[in-house]
């Protein structure tokens, strides 16, 4: 099977709201595929349609070679789903949650306890196996949710914003796990609004905005789309707000602030550097640092979507209820 996921003109309306607008793409077997976009772009709705949680309004899709509408139950046997918000039973222990997940997926009785023990040990939760999940931290719940998705050893994983809201250590652990799963041959479909995460993990990235896929390629090629624009990062002392004044300079197409530095997107570095020095001299500013940067995926995202990367940094509101998508 060349493609683990095939999507053709998938569309979803919630009432009159068009959440996903005729998206088409393929995910190759053994690939880590990123679905990158701001909150409300249609990421989660697409994932919910592909995993059988929501019915598409129109279009078609196949997962593991099975049609998601006509052969939904069979397709689900090959899927491991990690939702953004834990859907574990808070009233049950970590052990019982995993056993129940194994039972739902038809894991043979002899294997259930063995796999549950191994999973809990792998995720560092074995000592807490008898505790109710309701008492777990967000990071522990996310780890257990992943353990539950692994229990039937699926070939295709769907992870919805897997590191959102987690501490650095838990995020790193989950990213490493995604890499390990992929190295083991699993296909990963990942939604994220963290550009860096998509850049680090994904072999190909689809950028989705307002329900439409606006770009789809590997991260390096996406970055290359902004290579005609060079970036100069400059820091002045005293640091003041010069964004609008710098935008007026010749050859400068866009200016954004990153911490105490200003990023100027320019057509020709050699032309702009003297202009910046001249600008600083006229304003009696000291140039603390000036560097040229290679475009990042963040820059590509900003150019392709026309959105500020800061929009992506905004954490989304937690969504618990079954039904509409959130991203």
């Amino acid at each position, binding site marked *: 099977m060349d493609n683990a996921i095939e999507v053709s003109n998938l569309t979803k309306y919630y009432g009159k709201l068009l959440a996903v607008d005729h998206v088409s793409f393929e995910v190759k077997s053994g690939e880590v595929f990123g679905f990158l976009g701001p909150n409300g772009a249609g990421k989660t709705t697409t994932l919910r349609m592909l*995993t*059988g*949680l*929501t*019915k598409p309004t129109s279009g078609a899709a196949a997962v593991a070679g099975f049609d998601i509408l006509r052969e939904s*139950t*069979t397709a*689900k*046997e090959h*899927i491991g*789903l990690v*939702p953004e*918000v*834990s*859907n*574990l*039973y*808070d*009233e*049950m222990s970590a052990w*019982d949650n995993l056993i*129940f*997940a194994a*039972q*739902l*997926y*038809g894991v043979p009785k002899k294997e259930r306890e063995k796999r549950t023990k191994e999973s809990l040990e792998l995720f560092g939760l074995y000592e807490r196996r008898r505790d109710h999940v309701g008492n777990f931290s967000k990071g522990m719940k996310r780890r257990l949710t992943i353990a*539950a998705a692994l229990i039937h050893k699926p070939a295709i994983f769907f992870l919805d914003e897997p590191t959102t809201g987690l501490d650095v250590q838990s995020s790193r652990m989950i990213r490493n796990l995604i890499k390990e799963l992929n190295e083991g041959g699993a296909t990963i479909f990942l939604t994220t609004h963290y550009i860096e995460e998509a850049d680090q993990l994904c072999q190909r990235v689809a950028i989705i905005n307002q329900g439409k896929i606006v770009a789809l390629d590997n991260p390096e090629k996406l970055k290359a789309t902004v290579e005609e624009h060079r970036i100069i990062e400059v820091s002045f002392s005293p640091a003041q707000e010069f964004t609008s004044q710098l935008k007026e300079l010749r050859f400068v197409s866009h200016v954004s602030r990153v911490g105490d530095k200003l990023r100027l997107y320019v057509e020709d570095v050699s032309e702009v550097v003297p202009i910046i020095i001249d600008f600083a001299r006229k304003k009696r500013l000291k140039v603390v640092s000036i560097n040229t940067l290679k475009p990042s995926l963040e820059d590509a995202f900003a150019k392709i979507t026309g959105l500020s990367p800061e929009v992506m940094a905004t954490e989304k509101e937690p969504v*618990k*209820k*079954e*039904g509409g998508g959130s991203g």
Partner: protein
Amino acid sequence: MVKTKSIIQAVHIAKKDAKVYFFKWPNVTFGLFLPAIIYLAFSVGRPTEISSTIPGLVAMAALFGAGAIQSIALPLERAKGTFDRLLAAPVSLTTIIVGKALGGFFFGVVLSLAYSLIVIPLSGATLTYPLLFAFGIILSSFAFSALGACISAPFRDIPEAMPPATLLRVSMVFLSGVLIPVATMPNVLQLIAYLLPLTYAVDMMQQAMTGQIVSQLFLLDSAALILFSVFFLTAAVLILKRTIH
């Protein structure tokens, strides 16, 4: 043909529901005390004989045990997002609903049997056909659990689900021969009574209790409860399909 795998999955869902939602002390006390409270509120100062009302009390225990908690369990699961875990698994919607109905059924049977074991010896009444009485408990509990699943299927949260479920159950108690014999009701109410599963449950258990079995009537009661169960489960699946997607 029903697949063995589906039956096993339904039983796993039922066991999980029994553990998470049903077999909790507040639910047990609710199921045991509410029928007694309704009975006492109605019968104080009235010439009623406890032995003749035992079938109604046991049927109420099944109704409140199996049905009341069931009508909360499904919306609660949807509100908390755990229902997605079931939907994402390779399990059909019919299997999910049957599994949930089985969870309520187990609880209803246990509660009603416990009720019978307490009330019958205390009242000094004679249970003529215990096995037929137990059979009545089994069919009634499943029908009431299926009813609970059906009336809660359109709702995604408990506050939405509670009012219609409570209204229906309380109305059933007054219209199904639990407190007032159906035969003494006006014709219109009698007609309504025969549209309610509790009527058949009470009648069945009364026949088994008193020993005055009329075979055709007992079979009719059994068939009615089975048909009600099938109807409620089918309706629950269809309603869920519409509200999920």
